[in-house]
């Protein structure tokens, strides 16, 4: 039977919503699941983790050095914790992508990046070429499987569990060669891009940070999160953490608006799992219309305010 260690992610002191999706992948693999949480004080996150369906145990790894997430200090602790487990799963977020390979290399195993489907305890689907070729891979079953989970491919497990919470300690000696300086977080009252049901994204066509306000305003009317194409981020209209795509965030909302976005394959890689895609573009030949469920040819500067007034 598989013994699975899920590395939980903590954001603002609480369990990140992605962990419940990693649990869904763990449940699909099947077996006994432990969630490990590393931090200086992980009490609130541990509470959250213990309630997720399917969790047998929550390990709190609290240590002053864990106040900031650093791959160089987290990885040796996770390597130590991983003893006896068949799988170590991370969320496919910046957090997981930073740390998981460092753990895999220490365990001398290849990592499975971005699991999107589980066929068995060691057989998984993963995307390559911006999601244009899906590989079904078999990991050597005799060694530990280290993987990241593509969150957009899984539905969060429900709450209702009541797993035991245990304190765990490690003897790993932590390097001091890497130091946290600061985090400039984009504080926003809007729904989180990766968890939102509805997302409104704007592209290069917006032309300026000021003009981007019509996207924010429409999103607020819908209660939607805001996203953007790379071109909009590179041009400085919006912060980098709003980028959707192959190298930005991969999302799976119920409703996605692509406004003034051409539909480059790298952008599409981030929205393949959106349930309904609406495209607004003044060019009837724009590639985004090839995959949109609803397309409207028009000037966004008149279409968006009109939509806002009518929804």
């Amino acid at each position: 039977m598989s013994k699975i260690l899920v590395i939980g992610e903590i954001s603002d002191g609480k369990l990140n919503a992605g962990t419940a999706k990693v649990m869904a992948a763990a449940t699909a693999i099947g077996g006994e699941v432990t969630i490990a949480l590393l931090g200086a004080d992980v009490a609130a996150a541990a509470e959250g983790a213990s309630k997720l369906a399917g969790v047998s145990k929550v390990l709190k790894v609290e240590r002053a050095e864990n106040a900031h997430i650093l791959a160089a200090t987290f990885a040796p602790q996770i390597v130590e914790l991983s003893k006896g487990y068949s799988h170590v799963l991370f969320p496919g977020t910046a957090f997981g992508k930073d740390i998981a390979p460092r753990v895999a290399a220490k365990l001398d195993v290849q990592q499975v990046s971005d699991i999107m489907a589980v066929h068995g305890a060691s057989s998984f689907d993963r995307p390559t070429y911006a999601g244009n070729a899906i590989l079904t891979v078999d990991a050597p079953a005799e060694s530990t499987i280290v993987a990241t989970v593509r969150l957009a491919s899984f539905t969060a497990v429900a709450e209702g569990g009541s797993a035991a919470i245990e304190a765990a300690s490690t003897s790993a000696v932590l390097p001091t060669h890497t130091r946290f300086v600061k985090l400039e977080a984009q504080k926003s009252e809007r729904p989180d891009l990766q968890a939102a049901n509805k997302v409104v994204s704007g592209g290069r066509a917006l032309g300026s940070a000021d003009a981007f306000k019509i996207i924010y305003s429409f999103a607020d009317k819908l209660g939607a999160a805001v996203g953007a194409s790379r071109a909009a981020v590179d041009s400085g209209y919006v912060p980098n953490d709003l980028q959707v795509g192959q190298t930005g965030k991969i999302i799976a909302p119920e409703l996605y608006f692509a406004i003034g976005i051409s539909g480059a394959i790298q952008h599409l890689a981030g929205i393949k799992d959106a349930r309904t895609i609406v495209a607004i573009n003044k060019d009837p030949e724009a590639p985004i219309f090839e995959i949109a469920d609803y397309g409207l040819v028009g000037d966004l500067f008149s279409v968006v305010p009109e939509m806002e007034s009518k929804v």
Partner: protein
Amino acid sequence: MKALVSVKRVVDYNVRIQVKPDGSGVVTDGVKFSMNPFDEIAMEEAVRLKEKGKITEIIAVTIGGAKCEETLRTALAFGADRAVHVKEEGDIQPLTAAKALAAVFKKEGANLFLLGKQAIDDDANQTGQMVAALLDLPQATFASKVELEAAKVTVTREVDAGLETLELDLPAIVTTDLRLNEPRYLKLPDIMKAKKKPLEAISFESLGVTAAAGLKTAKVSAPPKRSKGVMVKTVDELVSALKAKGLV
């Protein structure tokens, strides 16, 4: 101060990928290849650091078959001083690549290693982190700003919450994100000059590296196709369609 930059030859980012009907892989015959875009960013950063006088030598490295020499010539045209070709045919998975790159980094006694955050063919996003683990060195992934000093490097990283800044003692491993810089266009004289720069071919054997056990690909399939939907003429039509589905 020596910088090592890894450059991978990949299918060009503009190519529409076709999966072979027998599920054995993707079509690469007659397809354009170029340097992985994130590695171009890594090269550009190294060259800018050299132009600022912070780096004295740039070494480009690749692992792969004979054709990867083109990619190294591109790196030399960017401004690498010399190139190392780890000549190995076949599928090189990240842990194996990382073992070879770590060995080259050690052999060259480099201080800074710049890699792309991800190769756009395998989309693995692993190699830099693995090199750092194998060498027990500091890492800063997804860099959007790099400030190099004599004994440390300060890196701003693109993380999910925003921008994080880390300070790393040298030697250190940095992987590049899109916003770090915009790679220059290569000029003909630089491309000509690159032909004469030193390029050394070595093997896994000479590095003392053996390929790590890999993941086996059972099959390659095309993703489910999204079909073209409907074109609506007016905002009213759009809004009522979305309302009918309970989406707005």
